[in-house]
């Protein structure tokens, strides 16, 4: 029978490519992470765990982990909350929901690198519109009073806005106190629409009867309905959205490479950028591979958390 072996032709190419392009490279990275290998050098030395040792002891890599984790901890909660908020608002609208959905999804589609360059212009300390708008607000009496808190009787110079009006507004990407936050802002801007769409899909699967039942039981306010019905029913979506956003934000690269190159003072030195800089630009493949392995470990842990929760069919009781 010809059919008995035809499957080999069907699965063969896929298996070969999976082995060669996905599994094998992981082993290559694991192997090289114990060496001082670089391209152009025919031989290499075993240096044991020296690369990993560096990762935990050198201040550069401490900054790397700090930058990556801070970025994830900024982007994930905010973009998930904004995604959920937008989905709840849009799904409860009588008209115009489709329009907002399209607008919020636009950044997900648009080339991130290109939009990052536009943001860089917008955030330019001198000619950028962001600081321009902020400066304009300083001259409008009531706005200044509102934003600086002086309408409550506080000293305007004590507040962030009042102080910035008196001195000047931040350099954003050029200031190590603001750079990572600014990169995170672009990440949130780009990604929350994706979370919104996932939540909208999750919301449509909440059975209508549950809201009626909640109504019968006296849950009348929107907040009660959310707390008793929507939120528990969104359990699986929450797990999915949080893990997907975490994995995606762990992989941040485009904005960092184009706008800050890890600076100023390594404040935006995230893992994928470090991998690129050490491995590709500086040809330090050993340390680059060690970062790769640690990075894979992080992603694997996040994925396993997801699988664990999805299998438990999370519904917060």
């Amino acid at each position, binding site marked *: 029978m010809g*059919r008995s072996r*035809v*499957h080999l*032709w*069907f*699965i063969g*190419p*896929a298996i070969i*490519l*999976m082995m060669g*392009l*996905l599994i*094998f*490279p*992981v082993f290559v*990275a694991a192997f*090289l992470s114990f060496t001082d290998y670089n*391209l152009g050098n025919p031989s290499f030395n075993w240096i044991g765990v020296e690369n990993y040792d560096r990762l935990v002891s050198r201040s550069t890599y401490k900054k790397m982990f700090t930058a990556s984790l801070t970025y994830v901890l900024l982007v994930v909660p905010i973009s998930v909350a904004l995604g959920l908020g937008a989905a709840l*608002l849009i799904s*409860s*609208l*009588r008209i115009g929901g489709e329009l*907002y959905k*399209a607008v*919020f*999804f*636009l950044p997900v*589609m*648009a*080339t*991130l*690198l*290109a*939009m990052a*360059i*536009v943001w860089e*212009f*917008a955030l330019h300390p001198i*000619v950028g*519109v962001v600081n321009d708008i902020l400066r304009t607000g300083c001259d409008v009496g009531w706005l200044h009073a509102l934003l600086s808190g002086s309408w409550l009787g506080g000293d305007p110079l004590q507040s962030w806005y009042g102080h910035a009006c008196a001195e000047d507004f931040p350099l954003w990407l050029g200031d190590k106190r603001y750079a990572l936050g600014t990169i995170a802002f672009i990440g949130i*801007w780009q990604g929350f*629409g994706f979370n919104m*769409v*996932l939540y909208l899909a999750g919301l449509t699967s909440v059975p209508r009867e549950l809201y009626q039942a909640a*109504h019968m039981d006296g849950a009348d306010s929107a907040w009660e309905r959310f707390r008793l019905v929507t939120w528990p029913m969104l359990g699986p979506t929450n797990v*999915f959205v949080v893990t997907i956003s975490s*994995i995606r934000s762990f992989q941040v690269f*485009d904005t960092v*490479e*184009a706008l800050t190159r890890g600076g100023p003072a390594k404040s935006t030195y995230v893992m*994928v950028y470090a*991998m*690129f800089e050490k*491995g*590709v630009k500086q040809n330090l*493949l050993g340390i680059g591979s060690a970062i*790769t392995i640690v*990075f*894979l470990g992080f*992603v694997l842990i996040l994925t396993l958390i997801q699988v664990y929760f999805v299998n438990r069919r999370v519904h917060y009781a």
Partner: protein
Amino acid sequence: MMVRTNWLGEFLKHSVLLAGAIVVLLPFYLMLSYSLKSPAEIESNTGGFVGSQEIMTDRRCIKAGKPAEECDMRPIVYNYTAAFSEAPLVRYMLNGVFVTVSIFVIQVLVALPCAYALSKLKFWGRDVVFGLVIFCLLIPVHAIALPLYIMLAKVGLTNTYAALIIPWTISVFGIFLMRQFFMTVPDDLIDAARMDGMSEFAIVWRVMLPTAIPALLAFGIFSVVAHWNDYYWPRVVITGNRDLMTPPLGLRMFKSDLDGNEYGPMMAATTVIVLPLVIIFLLAQRRFIEGITMTGMK
């Protein structure tokens, strides 16, 4: 139960969403606006959306020794001609199209037969292969970029189209998606085709492929968007050879070449690169959102 429209509530919801929409659209507005205005208007943030479009003089044109009247033009013309003349934008776009289309076609050629075998053929080791697919789903291709780069460099393939395409030829996600889809196709359809004397190859391409069009469309949108926008991988394997650059990478080079205040041409180039996908998205919005969320797990 009578539903009364809470007009105040509606108004508040729209205000919040509108404020969000303004922030979301700000960079798109700026990109278009800057691509139309003169350098002076851009730097002083004046001129509204389109600027005054006063005739300006192209300094580079004067330097090139052309007569002055040929060098006077409207800012919009200046920005867009400079974008196309300063950078091989057309080449970048063609590279982008070639690379994304090749990736998608190869992904389908590899994934479809595999998905068919995994869902409709019974053979020894099928569960092991499916397990391998699931396992590979855990590996983000971006994370293994460094070893892939080393492997390609070792065989001398960096700075080639092959380097841009090869790592993406296998989409375990595509296999997974197609397999789930084929599971819902009734076996009778395949048995009937076999009765008609069709070979297994013919079944894959003439029976399964047409039934899989909806899933393929979703996967195609996902794949094309991801690779048109991808910056990381081209940045790793293409070093300096402009002829091979994809749009995001070309744009990045354009940016680092600029002497600092050429915002107009820069934004014109950005517009040209961002606009195609945005327009297609706006035309086929529902499909895009479905496609990307359906495949969102990767």
